[in-house]
Protein backbone atom coordinates (compact mmCIF):
# COMPACT_ATOMS: atom_id res chain seq x y z
CA UNK A 1 0.00 0.00 0.00
CA UNK A 2 2.97 2.29 0.59
CA UNK A 3 3.56 2.36 -3.18
CA UNK A 4 0.01 3.62 -3.76
CA UNK A 5 0.40 6.28 -1.04
CA UNK A 6 3.72 7.43 -2.50
CA UNK A 7 2.39 7.62 -6.04
CA UNK A 8 -0.66 9.59 -4.90
CA UNK A 9 1.64 12.02 -3.08
CA UNK A 10 3.82 12.17 -6.21
CA UNK A 11 0.77 13.12 -8.31
CA UNK A 12 -0.25 15.79 -5.77
CA UNK A 13 3.32 17.09 -5.80
CA UNK A 14 3.28 17.32 -9.60
CA UNK A 15 -0.02 19.16 -9.46
CA UNK A 16 1.74 21.68 -7.19
CA UNK A 17 -0.76 21.13 -4.38
CA UNK A 18 1.97 21.51 -1.81
CA UNK A 19 2.64 25.10 -2.87
CA UNK A 20 -0.99 25.88 -2.04
CA UNK A 21 -0.69 23.98 1.24
CA UNK A 22 2.45 25.91 2.16
CA UNK A 23 0.92 29.27 1.30
CA UNK A 24 -2.20 28.47 3.30
CA UNK A 25 -0.07 27.39 6.25
CA UNK A 26 1.19 30.97 6.37
CA UNK A 27 -2.30 32.17 7.23
CA UNK A 28 -1.15 33.13 10.73
CA UNK A 29 1.55 35.40 9.30
CA UNK A 30 -1.11 37.96 8.41
CA UNK A 31 -2.37 38.00 12.00
CA UNK A 32 1.14 38.04 13.45
CA UNK A 33 2.16 40.98 11.30
CA UNK A 34 -1.15 42.70 12.09
CA UNK A 35 -0.48 42.41 15.82
CA UNK A 36 3.15 43.45 15.40
CA UNK A 37 2.38 46.52 13.29
CA UNK A 38 -0.93 47.31 15.04
CA UNK A 39 -2.97 47.08 11.86
CA UNK A 40 -6.47 48.38 12.56
CA UNK A 41 -8.31 45.49 10.88
CA UNK A 42 -6.65 42.89 13.13
CA UNK A 43 -8.52 42.98 16.39
CA UNK A 44 -7.48 40.47 19.06
CA UNK A 45 -8.68 40.87 22.62
CA UNK A 46 -6.62 39.58 25.51
CA UNK A 47 -3.19 38.07 25.59
CA UNK A 48 -2.02 34.89 23.97
CA UNK A 49 0.81 32.51 24.66
CA UNK A 50 2.55 30.31 22.10
CA UNK A 51 0.18 27.33 22.20
CA UNK A 52 -3.04 29.33 22.52
CA UNK A 53 -1.99 31.53 19.59
CA UNK A 54 -1.22 28.51 17.38
CA UNK A 55 -4.40 26.69 18.41
CA UNK A 56 -6.46 29.87 17.85
CA UNK A 57 -5.04 30.30 14.36
CA UNK A 58 -5.99 26.69 13.54
CA UNK A 59 -9.46 27.17 15.04
CA UNK A 60 -9.91 30.35 12.99
CA UNK A 61 -8.93 28.52 9.79
CA UNK A 62 -11.39 25.76 10.63
CA UNK A 63 -14.12 28.31 11.34
CA UNK A 64 -13.57 29.88 7.93
CA UNK A 65 -14.02 26.43 6.42
CA UNK A 66 -10.90 26.70 4.24
CA UNK A 67 -9.39 23.29 5.15
CA UNK A 68 -12.82 21.68 4.82
CA UNK A 69 -13.30 22.91 1.25
CA UNK A 70 -9.68 22.28 0.28
CA UNK A 71 -9.43 18.73 1.58
CA UNK A 72 -12.88 17.56 0.50
CA UNK A 73 -11.99 18.86 -2.97
CA UNK A 74 -8.63 17.05 -2.97
CA UNK A 75 -10.18 13.83 -1.65
CA UNK A 76 -13.09 13.82 -4.09
CA UNK A 77 -10.75 14.65 -6.97
CA UNK A 78 -8.33 11.87 -6.16
CA UNK A 79 -11.08 9.22 -6.29
CA UNK A 80 -14.27 10.40 -8.00
CA UNK A 81 -12.38 12.83 -10.22
CA UNK A 82 -10.20 10.03 -11.56
CA UNK A 83 -13.16 7.67 -11.94
CA UNK A 84 -15.05 10.21 -14.06
CA UNK A 85 -11.97 11.36 -16.00
CA UNK A 86 -10.99 7.77 -16.79
CA UNK A 87 -7.56 7.52 -15.13
CA UNK A 88 -8.93 5.23 -12.45
CA UNK A 89 -8.98 2.40 -15.02
CA UNK A 90 -5.21 2.69 -15.28
CA UNK A 91 -4.94 2.09 -11.56
CA UNK A 92 -7.61 -0.42 -10.60
CA UNK A 93 -6.42 -3.20 -12.91
CA UNK A 94 -2.82 -2.81 -11.79
CA UNK A 95 -2.95 -2.57 -8.01
CA UNK A 96 -2.68 -5.57 -5.70
CA UNK A 97 -6.18 -5.00 -4.34
CA UNK A 98 -8.98 -2.46 -4.49
CA UNK A 99 -8.71 -2.13 -0.72
CA UNK A 100 -5.06 -1.06 -0.94
CA UNK A 101 -5.90 1.42 -3.72
CA UNK A 102 -8.77 3.05 -1.82
CA UNK A 103 -6.93 3.10 1.51
CA UNK A 104 -3.78 4.35 -0.22
CA UNK A 105 -5.69 7.26 -1.72
CA UNK A 106 -7.36 8.09 1.60
CA UNK A 107 -4.13 7.84 3.59
CA UNK A 108 -2.25 10.03 1.11
CA UNK A 109 -4.81 12.82 1.60
CA UNK A 110 -4.69 12.30 5.37
CA UNK A 111 -0.89 12.57 5.23
CA UNK A 112 -1.21 15.88 3.36
CA UNK A 113 -3.74 17.03 5.96
CA UNK A 114 -1.42 16.09 8.82
CA UNK A 115 1.48 17.89 7.10
CA UNK A 116 -0.77 20.91 6.73
CA UNK A 117 -1.76 20.78 10.40
CA UNK A 118 1.79 20.35 11.65
CA UNK A 119 3.17 23.00 9.30
CA UNK A 120 0.39 25.36 10.26
CA UNK A 121 1.05 24.89 14.00
CA UNK A 122 4.82 25.13 13.49
CA UNK A 123 4.64 28.31 11.43
CA UNK A 124 2.10 29.85 13.82
CA UNK A 125 4.54 29.11 16.66
CA UNK A 126 7.40 30.63 14.68
CA UNK A 127 5.42 33.77 13.88
CA UNK A 128 4.33 34.02 17.52
CA UNK A 129 7.96 33.93 18.66
CA UNK A 130 9.07 36.47 16.02
CA UNK A 131 6.15 38.91 15.97
CA UNK A 132 3.58 38.33 18.72
CA UNK A 133 5.47 37.29 21.87
CA UNK A 134 6.67 40.80 22.74
CA UNK A 135 3.65 42.69 21.42
CA UNK A 136 0.69 43.98 23.43
CA UNK A 137 -1.15 40.71 22.76
CA UNK A 138 1.79 38.45 23.59
CA UNK A 139 2.70 36.73 26.84
CA UNK A 140 6.37 36.28 26.02
CA UNK A 141 7.93 32.91 25.41
CA UNK A 142 7.29 30.27 28.01
CA UNK A 143 7.74 26.54 27.58
CA UNK A 144 5.54 25.58 30.52
CA UNK A 145 2.61 23.40 29.50
CA UNK A 146 -0.58 24.11 31.46
CA UNK A 147 -3.65 21.87 31.46
CA UNK A 148 -5.58 24.28 29.23
CA UNK A 149 -2.79 23.90 26.65
CA UNK A 150 -3.45 20.17 26.48
CA UNK A 151 -7.15 20.92 26.09
CA UNK A 152 -6.51 23.35 23.24
CA UNK A 153 -4.26 20.86 21.47
CA UNK A 154 -6.72 17.98 21.92
CA UNK A 155 -9.55 20.12 20.54
CA UNK A 156 -7.43 21.04 17.51
CA UNK A 157 -6.60 17.35 16.99
CA UNK A 158 -10.35 16.62 17.12
CA UNK A 159 -10.64 19.20 14.33
CA UNK A 160 -8.16 17.17 12.28
CA UNK A 161 -10.17 14.00 12.88
CA UNK A 162 -13.32 15.87 11.87
CA UNK A 163 -11.60 16.79 8.61
CA UNK A 164 -10.59 13.14 8.06
CA UNK A 165 -14.27 12.23 8.51
CA UNK A 166 -15.23 14.73 5.82
CA UNK A 167 -12.43 13.53 3.55
CA UNK A 168 -13.95 10.03 3.84
CA UNK A 169 -17.48 11.33 3.20
CA UNK A 170 -16.32 13.31 0.14
CA UNK A 171 -14.57 10.23 -1.25
CA UNK A 172 -17.65 8.02 -0.78
CA UNK A 173 -19.95 10.55 -2.42
CA UNK A 174 -17.47 11.19 -5.27
CA UNK A 175 -17.65 7.54 -6.43
CA UNK A 176 -21.14 8.14 -7.82
CA UNK A 177 -21.30 11.91 -8.14
CA UNK A 178 -17.87 13.18 -9.24
CA UNK A 179 -15.73 15.88 -7.64
CA UNK A 180 -17.83 19.02 -7.55
CA UNK A 181 -21.08 17.45 -6.44
CA UNK A 182 -19.17 15.47 -3.80
CA UNK A 183 -17.71 18.70 -2.39
CA UNK A 184 -21.11 20.37 -2.41
CA UNK A 185 -22.81 17.39 -0.77
CA UNK A 186 -20.07 17.16 1.87
CA UNK A 187 -20.45 20.84 2.63
CA UNK A 188 -24.20 20.30 2.88
CA UNK A 189 -23.56 17.61 5.49
CA UNK A 190 -21.38 20.11 7.37
CA UNK A 191 -24.11 22.79 7.23
CA UNK A 192 -26.66 20.21 8.39
CA UNK A 193 -24.45 19.21 11.34
CA UNK A 194 -23.88 22.87 12.17
CA UNK A 195 -27.65 23.42 12.15
CA UNK A 196 -28.38 20.35 14.29
CA UNK A 197 -25.62 21.34 16.71
CA UNK A 198 -27.73 24.34 17.72
CA UNK A 199 -30.03 21.89 19.53
CA UNK A 200 -28.74 21.84 23.09
CA UNK A 201 -29.71 18.25 23.97
CA UNK A 202 -27.91 16.43 21.22
CA UNK A 203 -24.96 18.61 20.25
CA UNK A 204 -22.46 16.62 22.31
CA UNK A 205 -23.49 13.44 20.56
CA UNK A 206 -22.79 14.79 17.11
CA UNK A 207 -19.49 13.85 15.47
CA UNK A 208 -17.32 16.97 15.45
CA UNK A 209 -18.82 18.61 18.54
CA UNK A 210 -15.53 20.37 19.32
CA UNK A 211 -15.34 21.80 15.81
CA UNK A 212 -19.00 22.68 15.41
CA UNK A 213 -19.40 24.45 18.76
CA UNK A 214 -16.97 27.24 19.73
CA UNK A 215 -18.09 27.44 23.33
CA UNK A 216 -17.77 23.74 24.07
CA UNK A 217 -17.55 21.73 27.30
CA UNK A 218 -14.32 19.83 27.51
CA UNK A 219 -14.22 16.52 29.36
CA UNK A 220 -12.32 13.29 28.95
CA UNK A 221 -15.56 11.36 28.44
CA UNK A 222 -16.83 13.62 25.67
CA UNK A 223 -13.38 13.54 24.08
CA UNK A 224 -13.32 9.73 24.09
CA UNK A 225 -16.85 9.60 22.73
CA UNK A 226 -15.92 12.05 19.96
CA UNK A 227 -12.83 10.04 18.99
CA UNK A 228 -14.94 6.86 18.98
CA UNK A 229 -17.88 8.24 16.99
CA UNK A 230 -15.69 9.90 14.36
CA UNK A 231 -13.48 6.81 14.10
CA UNK A 232 -16.62 4.68 13.69
CA UNK A 233 -18.02 6.86 10.91
CA UNK A 234 -14.64 6.96 9.14
CA UNK A 235 -14.50 3.14 9.33
CA UNK A 236 -18.03 2.82 7.93
CA UNK A 237 -17.20 5.28 5.14
CA UNK A 238 -14.11 3.26 4.17
CA UNK A 239 -16.08 -0.02 4.05
CA UNK A 240 -18.85 1.58 1.96
CA UNK A 241 -16.26 3.13 -0.37
CA UNK A 242 -14.47 -0.19 -0.99
CA UNK A 243 -17.77 -1.95 -1.69
CA UNK A 244 -18.93 0.76 -4.07
CA UNK A 245 -15.66 0.63 -5.99
CA UNK A 246 -15.83 -3.18 -6.22
CA UNK A 247 -19.40 -3.17 -7.53
CA UNK A 248 -18.94 -0.33 -9.99
CA UNK A 249 -18.64 -0.83 -13.76
CA UNK A 250 -15.85 1.15 -15.42
Amino acid at each position, binding site marked *: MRDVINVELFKLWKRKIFIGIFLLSNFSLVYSLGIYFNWSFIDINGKLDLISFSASMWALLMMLGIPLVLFTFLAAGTLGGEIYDGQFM*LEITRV*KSIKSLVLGKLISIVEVLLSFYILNMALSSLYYIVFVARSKNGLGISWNIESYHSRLLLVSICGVLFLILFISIAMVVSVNFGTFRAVLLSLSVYVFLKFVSSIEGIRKLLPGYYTLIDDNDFSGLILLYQLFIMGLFIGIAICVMINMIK*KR*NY
Partner: protein
Amino acid sequence: MELLLSVNQLVKKYDTKTVLDNVSFEITKGEIVGLLGVNGSGKTTLMKVILGLTSFEAGEIKHKGNSNYLKSFKSRREFGYLLDCKLFEYLSGYDNLYTVGKYANHWQGKTKTEIAEEINGLLDLVDLPNSKKRVKGYSFGMKQRLGLAMALMGTPDFLILDEPFVGLDPVGIEHLLGFISNLRKDLDITILISSHQLNEVEQISDRYLYITNQKVKEVTKNSSKKYVIKLNNPDKLLLNQLQSIADIEHNDVLFEAKNELINKVLKIIYQNQGEITDIQVTNDNLVDLFRGDSK
Protein backbone atom coordinates in the same frame (compact mmCIF):
# COMPACT_ATOMS: atom_id res chain seq x y z
CA MET B 1 -1.25 -24.83 -28.92
CA GLU B 2 -1.65 -23.54 -25.37
CA LEU B 3 -5.11 -22.21 -24.58
CA LEU B 4 -4.68 -18.72 -23.17
CA LEU B 5 -8.22 -17.44 -22.75
CA SER B 6 -11.57 -19.17 -22.87
CA VAL B 7 -14.92 -17.44 -22.61
CA ASN B 8 -17.95 -19.66 -22.03
CA GLN B 9 -21.62 -18.68 -22.20
CA LEU B 10 -20.86 -15.11 -21.13
CA VAL B 11 -23.85 -12.86 -20.50
CA LYS B 12 -23.48 -9.16 -19.87
CA LYS B 13 -26.37 -6.76 -19.30
CA TYR B 14 -26.55 -3.05 -18.63
CA ASP B 15 -29.72 -2.80 -16.53
CA THR B 16 -32.22 -4.74 -18.64
CA LYS B 17 -30.38 -4.37 -21.96
CA THR B 18 -28.40 -7.45 -22.95
CA VAL B 19 -25.08 -6.46 -24.53
CA LEU B 20 -23.45 -9.90 -24.74
CA ASP B 21 -25.63 -12.98 -24.87
CA ASN B 22 -24.11 -16.44 -24.33
CA VAL B 23 -20.81 -15.46 -25.87
CA SER B 24 -18.21 -18.22 -26.16
CA PHE B 25 -14.80 -18.28 -27.81
CA GLU B 26 -11.22 -19.29 -27.21
CA ILE B 27 -7.87 -17.64 -27.86
CA THR B 28 -4.66 -19.65 -28.02
CA LYS B 29 -1.18 -18.38 -27.21
CA GLY B 30 0.54 -16.35 -29.89
CA GLU B 31 -2.59 -15.50 -31.87
CA ILE B 32 -3.61 -12.07 -33.08
CA VAL B 33 -7.39 -12.03 -33.00
CA GLY B 34 -9.38 -9.18 -34.50
CA LEU B 35 -12.52 -8.25 -32.57
CA LEU B 36 -14.92 -6.65 -35.00
CA GLY B 37 -18.36 -5.18 -34.94
CA VAL B 38 -20.18 -1.99 -35.70
CA ASN B 39 -20.13 0.87 -33.18
CA GLY B 40 -21.99 -0.05 -30.01
CA SER B 41 -21.91 -3.77 -30.70
CA GLY B 42 -20.18 -4.56 -27.39
CA LYS B 43 -16.49 -4.83 -28.34
CA THR B 44 -15.25 -2.54 -25.56
CA THR B 45 -17.63 -4.11 -23.05
CA LEU B 46 -16.25 -7.57 -23.84
CA MET B 47 -12.69 -6.30 -23.35
CA LYS B 48 -13.63 -4.63 -20.07
CA VAL B 49 -15.28 -7.83 -18.86
CA ILE B 50 -12.10 -9.80 -19.62
CA LEU B 51 -10.06 -7.21 -17.71
CA GLY B 52 -12.46 -7.22 -14.76
CA LEU B 53 -13.44 -3.59 -15.24
CA THR B 54 -17.06 -4.55 -15.69
CA SER B 55 -19.02 -7.31 -14.01
CA PHE B 56 -21.03 -9.92 -15.91
CA GLU B 57 -24.26 -11.72 -15.18
CA ALA B 58 -23.48 -15.28 -16.21
CA GLY B 59 -20.82 -17.45 -17.78
CA GLU B 60 -17.17 -18.05 -17.13
CA ILE B 61 -13.87 -16.62 -18.29
CA LYS B 62 -10.67 -18.57 -17.80
CA HIS B 63 -7.12 -17.33 -18.25
CA LYS B 64 -4.74 -20.27 -18.59
CA GLY B 65 -7.49 -22.47 -17.16
CA ASN B 66 -7.98 -20.29 -14.10
CA SER B 67 -11.40 -18.69 -13.66
CA ASN B 68 -10.21 -16.72 -10.62
CA TYR B 69 -7.46 -14.95 -12.55
CA LEU B 70 -8.86 -11.51 -11.71
CA LYS B 71 -8.34 -12.15 -8.02
CA SER B 72 -4.69 -13.03 -8.58
CA PHE B 73 -2.29 -10.08 -8.75
CA LYS B 74 0.20 -12.26 -10.62
CA SER B 75 -2.36 -13.26 -13.28
CA ARG B 76 -3.62 -9.72 -13.74
CA ARG B 77 -0.06 -8.56 -14.39
CA GLU B 78 0.02 -10.82 -17.43
CA PHE B 79 -2.54 -8.57 -19.13
CA GLY B 80 -1.62 -5.38 -20.90
CA TYR B 81 -4.28 -3.16 -22.34
CA LEU B 82 -5.00 -0.01 -24.25
CA LEU B 83 -8.55 1.14 -23.67
CA ASP B 84 -10.07 4.51 -24.22
CA CYS B 85 -8.71 5.65 -20.89
CA LYS B 86 -7.43 9.07 -20.14
CA LEU B 87 -3.83 9.58 -19.14
CA PHE B 88 -2.57 11.77 -16.32
CA GLU B 89 -2.57 14.96 -18.37
CA TYR B 90 -0.62 17.01 -15.82
CA LEU B 91 2.31 14.57 -15.91
CA SER B 92 4.94 14.05 -18.60
CA GLY B 93 5.06 10.81 -20.60
CA TYR B 94 7.91 9.60 -18.40
CA ASP B 95 5.99 10.39 -15.22
CA ASN B 96 2.88 8.67 -16.56
CA LEU B 97 4.84 5.47 -17.04
CA TYR B 98 6.50 5.88 -13.66
CA THR B 99 3.10 6.39 -12.00
CA VAL B 100 1.46 3.39 -13.62
CA GLY B 101 4.48 1.22 -12.78
CA LYS B 102 4.27 2.38 -9.20
CA TYR B 103 0.61 1.32 -8.93
CA ALA B 104 1.56 -2.07 -10.33
CA ASN B 105 4.37 -2.44 -7.80
CA HIS B 106 6.56 -2.84 -10.86
CA TRP B 107 9.49 -0.80 -9.58
CA GLN B 108 9.93 -2.79 -6.39
CA GLY B 109 13.54 -3.84 -5.88
CA LYS B 110 14.76 -1.74 -8.81
CA THR B 111 17.23 1.11 -8.56
CA LYS B 112 16.47 4.60 -9.91
CA THR B 113 18.80 3.93 -12.85
CA GLU B 114 17.06 0.65 -13.69
CA ILE B 115 13.66 2.35 -13.52
CA ALA B 116 14.85 5.18 -15.77
CA GLU B 117 16.35 2.69 -18.24
CA GLU B 118 13.12 0.71 -18.44
CA ILE B 119 10.94 3.79 -18.88
CA ASN B 120 13.24 5.27 -21.51
CA GLY B 121 13.28 1.87 -23.26
CA LEU B 122 9.48 1.88 -23.39
CA LEU B 123 9.40 5.46 -24.68
CA ASP B 124 11.94 4.53 -27.37
CA LEU B 125 9.89 1.49 -28.30
CA VAL B 126 6.83 3.61 -29.08
CA ASP B 127 8.93 6.39 -30.56
CA LEU B 128 8.20 9.05 -27.96
CA PRO B 129 10.79 11.54 -26.72
CA ASN B 130 11.66 11.65 -23.03
CA SER B 131 10.81 15.30 -22.51
CA LYS B 132 9.31 17.21 -19.63
CA LYS B 133 6.38 18.14 -21.84
CA ARG B 134 3.09 17.36 -20.17
CA VAL B 135 0.78 14.85 -21.83
CA LYS B 136 -1.80 17.64 -22.05
CA GLY B 137 0.24 19.01 -24.96
CA TYR B 138 0.55 15.65 -26.77
CA SER B 139 -1.17 14.92 -30.07
CA PHE B 140 -3.74 12.11 -30.13
CA GLY B 141 -1.26 9.79 -31.82
CA MET B 142 1.34 10.46 -29.14
CA LYS B 143 -1.22 9.70 -26.44
CA GLN B 144 -2.10 6.43 -28.18
CA ARG B 145 1.56 5.46 -28.29
CA LEU B 146 2.04 6.35 -24.63
CA GLY B 147 -1.00 4.21 -23.82
CA LEU B 148 0.63 1.39 -25.76
CA ALA B 149 3.86 1.82 -23.78
CA MET B 150 1.80 1.53 -20.59
CA ALA B 151 0.19 -1.62 -21.93
CA LEU B 152 3.59 -3.14 -22.64
CA MET B 153 5.05 -2.39 -19.22
CA GLY B 154 6.18 -5.60 -17.56
CA THR B 155 6.00 -7.49 -20.89
CA PRO B 156 2.48 -8.94 -20.62
CA ASP B 157 1.68 -12.17 -22.41
CA PHE B 158 -1.80 -11.03 -23.43
CA LEU B 159 -2.42 -7.62 -24.94
CA ILE B 160 -5.89 -6.13 -25.33
CA LEU B 161 -6.08 -3.18 -27.72
CA ASP B 162 -9.32 -1.29 -28.13
CA GLU B 163 -9.53 0.77 -31.32
CA PRO B 164 -5.79 1.53 -31.40
CA PHE B 165 -5.98 3.06 -34.91
CA VAL B 166 -8.59 5.69 -34.13
CA GLY B 167 -7.24 9.19 -34.60
CA LEU B 168 -3.97 8.09 -36.18
CA ASP B 169 -2.79 9.41 -39.53
CA PRO B 170 -1.86 6.89 -42.28
CA VAL B 171 1.82 6.97 -41.30
CA GLY B 172 0.90 6.38 -37.67
CA ILE B 173 -1.35 3.46 -38.64
CA GLU B 174 1.40 1.92 -40.76
CA HIS B 175 3.86 2.31 -37.90
CA LEU B 176 1.46 0.78 -35.38
CA LEU B 177 0.65 -2.16 -37.65
CA GLY B 178 4.34 -2.97 -38.00
CA PHE B 179 4.83 -2.53 -34.28
CA ILE B 180 1.99 -4.91 -33.36
CA SER B 181 3.23 -7.56 -35.81
CA ASN B 182 6.70 -7.32 -34.31
CA LEU B 183 5.32 -7.73 -30.79
CA ARG B 184 4.04 -11.16 -31.68
CA LYS B 185 7.16 -12.05 -33.63
CA ASP B 186 9.68 -10.84 -31.03
CA LEU B 187 7.87 -11.31 -27.74
CA ASP B 188 5.28 -13.99 -28.58
CA ILE B 189 2.51 -11.80 -27.18
CA THR B 190 -1.10 -12.83 -27.80
CA ILE B 191 -3.20 -9.91 -28.97
CA LEU B 192 -6.93 -9.21 -29.03
CA ILE B 193 -7.47 -6.11 -31.11
CA SER B 194 -10.78 -4.37 -31.69
CA SER B 195 -11.61 -2.04 -34.51
CA HIS B 196 -14.36 -1.10 -36.88
CA GLN B 197 -11.73 -0.36 -39.52
CA LEU B 198 -11.51 -3.60 -41.45
CA ASN B 199 -8.40 -2.87 -43.47
CA GLU B 200 -6.07 -2.43 -40.54
CA VAL B 201 -7.27 -5.35 -38.47
CA GLU B 202 -7.25 -7.57 -41.50
CA GLN B 203 -3.58 -6.95 -42.15
CA ILE B 204 -2.41 -8.30 -38.80
CA SER B 205 -5.10 -10.69 -37.54
CA ASP B 206 -4.96 -14.47 -37.82
CA ARG B 207 -8.74 -14.71 -37.45
CA TYR B 208 -11.67 -12.62 -36.34
CA LEU B 209 -14.37 -12.55 -33.73
CA TYR B 210 -17.33 -10.65 -35.03
CA ILE B 211 -19.93 -9.31 -32.58
CA THR B 212 -23.41 -9.02 -33.97
CA ASN B 213 -26.80 -9.15 -32.25
CA GLN B 214 -25.07 -9.64 -28.88
CA LYS B 215 -23.42 -12.86 -30.13
CA VAL B 216 -19.88 -13.57 -31.23
CA LYS B 217 -19.31 -15.22 -34.59
CA GLU B 218 -15.96 -16.76 -35.42
CA VAL B 219 -14.84 -15.67 -38.86
CA THR B 220 -11.99 -17.39 -40.60
CA LYS B 221 -9.68 -15.44 -42.82
CA ASN B 222 -10.71 -15.71 -46.43
CA SER B 223 -8.19 -15.39 -49.22
CA SER B 224 -10.84 -13.82 -51.41
CA LYS B 225 -10.69 -10.03 -51.35
CA LYS B 226 -13.02 -7.26 -52.28
CA TYR B 227 -12.49 -3.66 -53.27
CA VAL B 228 -14.71 -1.06 -51.70
CA ILE B 229 -14.72 2.29 -53.47
CA LYS B 230 -16.56 5.08 -51.71
CA LEU B 231 -18.03 7.79 -53.95
CA ASN B 232 -19.07 11.31 -53.12
CA ASN B 233 -22.63 12.00 -54.32
CA PRO B 234 -22.49 9.83 -57.45
CA ASP B 235 -25.15 10.56 -60.08
CA LYS B 236 -27.68 7.91 -61.16
CA LEU B 237 -26.10 7.39 -64.57
CA LEU B 238 -22.76 6.51 -62.99
CA LEU B 239 -24.35 4.10 -60.54
CA ASN B 240 -26.40 2.45 -63.30
CA GLN B 241 -23.26 1.87 -65.36
CA LEU B 242 -21.36 0.49 -62.36
CA GLN B 243 -24.22 -1.83 -61.42
CA SER B 244 -23.50 -4.01 -64.43
CA ILE B 245 -20.09 -5.05 -63.05
CA ALA B 246 -20.24 -4.33 -59.29
CA ASP B 247 -22.53 -4.29 -56.25
CA ILE B 248 -23.76 -0.89 -55.11
CA GLU B 249 -24.47 -0.25 -51.43
CA HIS B 250 -25.54 3.35 -50.80
CA ASN B 251 -22.59 5.21 -52.32
CA ASP B 252 -20.15 2.31 -52.02
CA VAL B 253 -19.08 0.23 -55.01
CA LEU B 254 -18.11 -3.32 -54.09
CA PHE B 255 -16.51 -5.81 -56.43
CA GLU B 256 -14.08 -8.70 -56.52
CA ALA B 257 -10.44 -7.70 -56.26
CA LYS B 258 -9.40 -8.52 -59.81
CA ASN B 259 -7.22 -6.24 -61.91
CA GLU B 260 -9.43 -6.28 -64.97
CA LEU B 261 -12.42 -5.28 -62.86
CA ILE B 262 -10.73 -2.36 -61.14
CA ASN B 263 -9.64 -1.01 -64.48
CA LYS B 264 -13.21 -1.14 -65.75
CA VAL B 265 -14.69 0.41 -62.58
CA LEU B 266 -12.15 3.24 -62.47
CA LYS B 267 -12.68 3.94 -66.15
CA ILE B 268 -16.45 4.28 -65.67
CA ILE B 269 -15.95 6.56 -62.64
CA TYR B 270 -13.43 8.67 -64.56
CA GLN B 271 -15.66 8.97 -67.62
CA ASN B 272 -18.63 10.06 -65.49
CA GLN B 273 -16.47 12.47 -63.46
CA GLY B 274 -17.26 10.64 -60.22
CA GLU B 275 -15.44 11.69 -57.05
CA ILE B 276 -13.71 8.91 -55.07
CA THR B 277 -13.45 9.56 -51.32
CA ASP B 278 -11.87 6.28 -50.23
CA ILE B 279 -10.65 2.95 -51.61
CA GLN B 280 -10.35 -0.13 -49.41
CA VAL B 281 -9.24 -3.67 -50.10
CA THR B 282 -10.78 -6.01 -47.61
CA ASN B 283 -11.70 -9.56 -46.78
CA ASP B 284 -14.76 -10.80 -48.60
CA ASN B 285 -16.32 -12.35 -45.47
CA LEU B 286 -15.92 -9.23 -43.38
CA VAL B 287 -17.47 -6.91 -45.91
CA ASP B 288 -20.53 -9.12 -46.11
CA LEU B 289 -20.84 -9.21 -42.33
CA PHE B 290 -20.54 -5.43 -41.95
CA ARG B 291 -22.96 -4.86 -44.81
CA GLY B 292 -25.48 -7.10 -43.09
CA ASP B 293 -25.17 -5.25 -39.79
CA SER B 294 -25.28 -1.73 -41.08
CA LYS B 295 -28.49 -2.31 -43.03
